[in-house]
């Protein structure tokens, strides 16, 4: 009987050990699952931050475009409206985020950089505003010195036909010139010598004639300076390559050798100004924010916004984050604003 009892105890011991092992397996399985499950929520909080950032960037870009297209003639109207629109979105999102996730969301517009929106809305030669000079036909002139150039388009309805049998055609062809802290950059716009297309060239051959680097589909052209395309066709160069830091001086030469319209959004800041005549010191662009009267086929500057800097702060159980978003829609990489944080 003594041996039987010992055998039973050993058996019971074995059963207890087996039970403990199974319990351990069950507990560990639960721990693994809980760990796996608990780490799932964190990316969703991050996703919300990313989603909000994207929405704010997109909203800033859209309201800047909307307000700039209004062409206000009173200084800072555009900036105030952009700020108001972003705050409206902020308010809507904040309430919704708190109700849904218990997170506080604070969207603050830190800075709005003013701009001149310089446009020639009606087709015409690219000459300076007559009102500034008091006389007509000024075709070599400075548009402005600006802290950044963005959202720039030119439509060309006609341009001088380049004759390769001549020499020094570049000096008789329309030229857009950008000068920065390092160097200047030029692009010539002219009619292709053999095809009825508008061509662009940034280099000049040994005869002093501009070289065709890209061209339009037909006799008119739509040039996007940000994408650096003509009628959607890519050019083998970028806008204002190698000019260095701003401020940037934007200048036209031989403006009587081209007709069309244009738009440039030019950043305002220290050391920036609308172009002035060398002798009389009059403005070359009618500045509506200073009360200048405008003519449709001449350049006019309206109140605008160049960029915004917005801070998005999120505070919740899972995540606390501060993100800063700088928005300057369609800004080429070579003529950036000095405002960028």
């Amino acid at each position, binding site marked *: 009987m003594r041996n039987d009892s010992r055998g039973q105890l050993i058996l019971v011991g074995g059963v207890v050990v*087996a039970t403990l092992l199974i319990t351990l397996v069950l507990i560990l399985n639960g721990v693994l699952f809980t760990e*796996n499950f608990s780490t799932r929520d964190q990316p969703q909080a991050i996703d919300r931050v990313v989603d909000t950032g994207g929405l704010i960037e997109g909203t800033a870009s859209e309201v800047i475009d909307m307000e700039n297209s209004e062409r206000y003639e009173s200084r800072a109207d555009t900036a105030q409206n952009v700020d108001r*629109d972003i705050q409206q979105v902020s308010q809507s999102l904040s309430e919704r985020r708190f109700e849904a996730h218990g997170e506080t969301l604070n969207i603050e517009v830190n800075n709005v950089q003013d701009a001149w929106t310089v446009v020639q809305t009606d087709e015409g030669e690219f000459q300076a505003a007559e009102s500034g000079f008091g006389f007509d036909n000024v075709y070599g002139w400075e548009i402005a010195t600006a802290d950044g150039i963005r959202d720039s388009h030119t439509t060309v309805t006609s341009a001088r036909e380049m004759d390769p049998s001549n020499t020094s055609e570049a000096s008789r062809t329309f030229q857009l010139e950008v000068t920065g802290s390092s160097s200047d950059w030029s692009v010539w716009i002219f009619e292709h010598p053999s095809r009825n297309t508008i061509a662009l060239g940034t280099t000049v051959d040994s005869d002093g004639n501009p070289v065709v680097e890209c061209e339009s589909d037909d006799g008119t052209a739509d040039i996007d300076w940000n994408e650096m395309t003509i009628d959607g066709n890519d050019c083998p160069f970028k806008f204002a390559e190698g000019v260095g830091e701003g401020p940037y001086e934007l200048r036209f030469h031989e403006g009587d050798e081209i007709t069309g319209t244009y738009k440039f959004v030019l950043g305002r800041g220290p050391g920036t100004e609308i172009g002035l005549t060398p002798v009389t010191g009059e403005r070359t662009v009618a500045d509506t924010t200073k009360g200048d009267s405008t003519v449709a086929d001449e350049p006019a500057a309206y109140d605008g916004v160049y960029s915004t800097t917005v801070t998005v702060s999120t505070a919740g159980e899972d995540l606390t984050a501060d993100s800063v978003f700088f928005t300057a829609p369609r800004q080429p990489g070579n003529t950036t604003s000095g405002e960028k944080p």
Partner: protein
Amino acid sequence: MFQTDESGQAHAIEAIAASILVLSTVIFAIQATAITPLTVSTSNQHIETQQQRMADGVLSNAKYTETTGETSALKEAVLYWNTDKKVFYNASADGYLGKYPDNDFGDSLNETFSDQRIATNIYVTYERPSDGSGTKQMVDMGNPSDNSITATTNVVIYNHDEVSAPDESTTVEDTSGYFAKDVNPASNVYNVVEVRIVVWRI
């Protein structure tokens, strides 16, 4: 007698331990054998994560555009509204029942979820001018399962945005038939709506 008592105690402990062992084995066996795609487990978590990414991806693709100034597919879907009947275009009062809308966002949902046997409900929540919020259901495919997942994003509607349904040529601010109202007439922002997708495996 003493020996018999000792043996009885041992038998009792053995019986209790054996019953615990049997019970534990049964519980473990139930857990081990009832594994389906919807069983609560780490495998199911992977499926839910996959569905989460699919839903997030559909929303991300739909809310961005290739060209600046173009209306995104998601905003087009939110504006796909019949201002006379005050329902989504060609939909019932409860939204599209068992189908997706006939627009780019609907095509995207169809391509992503239909072949995977995944059902979807879509809700659009808008802000009311006075206070609070309202919700319109865009797509209704039934009651979600316990394993459903949710993805959300927000769309900003501006005063000048046009109602995108066929035969509609009005902006949201020029009609009283659109479901969301202008929350701040002084601002260009008309309303900020939240699009919520609930996804589950059928």
